[in-house]
């Protein structure tokens, strides 16, 4: 025994550098990690990003304020409505207007449905990459049910571009509310099945408990927000701290974790799905009838009968489409609770119809920058659940 130990200590070992390249299933497509390994233990990891940088800021400077909306869909492409809502709230803040009451409820309703789809995708991916393919299929089926509802209301499954300055584009079709009420229990049923499969599963707990722990102070120092921060026990949710739209009228709790490990981040997301479900039901109860967009033709397109029937209508339509909404000059930072954390838009306007500068504060960027801190000392196999649980979405990190 001592002989072999003596031999082992004399064996020349060296560190190995492995490249988990940008095209890798567990890297969610676009992150390159250069890890230095001692055996299976990660000594150091250097993330390199930029493989999905699509020039959002530069392209949005060439488009009118409304034409930027499709670009915002593709930021966090798993919950696009939350991005639409965040961006339009910024433009409305710059102008100084508010949307109608019904549209506020609609935005909250669809935003929460979008948040549920984001958490479902994240949980499904965690299951898939740890080998639980059934969890992935259940999560995808639940997501399909919700995407059907989103498609019936907004017109698109994934990239919706649904909000407009002063309101939203489309209202609920007839019968939609009943269909939503019918499909939500099925979504919850599938979430419960996922819960039963994973949460008390010995293998899952062994692979995710105490993996990727980060303390609360480090998390704040690294700029964490959202579920990753709440898993450390810090109670910061923009919907409660600075309520926007009608979140102050909604009754929901914010789940908190204790240890800041991967398991907490996973369980937190499941609990947030249930809280979002509560918010959706309350929105359906409280939603008032009324217009879904304001009647101010400087910002909202006039109804078609006025466009074709009156001079003012056709002029307003022409100016809005050709020149864009004339947003007064100024600079504003608007922040909402995206599915991964605080999604912020830093908007600068110079008074014309196109944005002067837009910079997105994607919640994933600070969390990804903390990845070397999270995985140091763990095995390569632990990298996978950690990377899944932080739910880095390439679109919002790299704009």
């Amino acid at each position, binding site marked *: 025994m001592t002989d072999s130990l003596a031999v082992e200590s004399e064996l020349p070992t060296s560190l190995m550098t492995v490249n988990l390249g940008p095209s890798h299933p567990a890297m969610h497509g676009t992150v390159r990690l250069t890890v230095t390994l001692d055996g299976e233990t990660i000594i150091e990891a250097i993330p390199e990003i930029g493989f999905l940088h699509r020039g959002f800021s*530069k392209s949005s400077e060439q488009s009118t304020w409304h034409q930027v909306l499709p670009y915002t869909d593709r930021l966090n492409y798993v919950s696009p409505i939350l991005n639409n809502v965040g961006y339009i709230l910024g433009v409305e803040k710059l102008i100084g207007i508010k949307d109608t009451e019904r549209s506020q409820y609609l935005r909250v309703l669809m935003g929460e449905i979008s948040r549920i789809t984001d958490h479902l995708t994240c949980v499904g991916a965690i299951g898939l990459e740890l080998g639980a393919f059934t969890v992935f299929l259940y999560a995808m089926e639940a997501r399909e049910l919700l995407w059907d509802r989103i498609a019936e209301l907004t017109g698109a499954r994934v990239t919706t571009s649904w909000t407009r300055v002063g309101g939203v584009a489309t209202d609920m079709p007839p019968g939609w509310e009943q269909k939503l009420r019918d499909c939500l229990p099925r979504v919850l049923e599938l979430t419960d099945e996922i819960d039963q499969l994973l949460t008390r599963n010995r293998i899952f707990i062994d692979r995710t408990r105490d993996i990727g722990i980060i303390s609360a102070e480090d998390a704040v*120092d690294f700029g964490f927000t959202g579920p990753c921060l709440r898993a450390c026990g810090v109670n910061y949710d923009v919907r409660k701290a600075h309520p926007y739209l009608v979140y102050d009228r909604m009754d929901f709790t914010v789940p908190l974790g204790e240890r800041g490990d991967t398991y907490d981040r996973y369980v937190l997301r499941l609990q947030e799905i249930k809280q979002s479900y509560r918010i959706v039901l309350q929105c359906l109860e409280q939603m008032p009838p009324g217009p879904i967009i304001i009647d101010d033709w400087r910002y909202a397109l006039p109804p078609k009968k006025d466009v074709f029937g009156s001079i003012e209508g056709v002029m307003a339509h022409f100016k809005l489409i050709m020149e864009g909404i004339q947003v007064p000059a100024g600079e504003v930072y608007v922040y909402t609770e995206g599915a991964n954390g605080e999604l912020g838009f830093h908007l600068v306007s*110079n008074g014309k119809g196109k944005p*002067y500068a837009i910079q997105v504060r994607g919640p994933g*960027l600070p969390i990804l*920058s903390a990845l070397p801190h999270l995985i140091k000392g763990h095995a390569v196999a632990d990298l996978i659940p950690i990377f899944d649980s932080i739910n880095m979405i390439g679109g919002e990190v790299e*704009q």
Partner: protein
Amino acid sequence: MAQALIDRVREKFAAAKGSSHRGDEVVTVERGDLVAVIAFLRNDSACDMKLLRQIAAVDLLTFAGETTGGGSLASIEAPAYATAHKPQVEPRYYVSYNLYSITKKQSLRVRVDLRSDDLKLPSIASLYKTADWWERYVYDMFGVVFEGHPDLRRLLMYPEFVGHPLRKDYPVRKRQPLVPELDFPDLVRGPGPGPGGAGVPMSQTHVGRKNVDPNTYD
């Protein structure tokens, strides 16, 4: 609420100027005071701004002159006219540090103006760990050099890229390809086995396949 913060900052740093727009408070400081102001905002118990949300930068080159919005000076290559008559705006850039206090629920932006011939700032990566990547982003996109940064290199663009894309004088569609870009594909044949031999790739077929300059081909 954040006005109180601005007042506290102005008590200690007399050169700071406060402003507010649509409910957002901004305090503009000199470059020399920047690290001291941010350290004060972070460590003072009444401010307690432990969360650095974002470091944003804006290039004011076309702010006044642009008639249709915020666009760059050119699409692919800046024509000689635009380069010769480029508007001169000083200070041309400003960098904005967006701070937040979770306990006090207050936000504040700290703004520093920069001239284009003196594009340097002290790094705050020692104060906030998240500043590391945000400063790399601002360096990559605007060319602001952060002195004291542990590892200042490009974040999103590749090292062979020349220029800083989000500056207003960088043309929008000027690509710098890493791999030579090819022309129109041959719509008839694919790269699989087919007439002409196993796996003759489409780039080798006779139909108009040649390398093109991506900045002229559309």
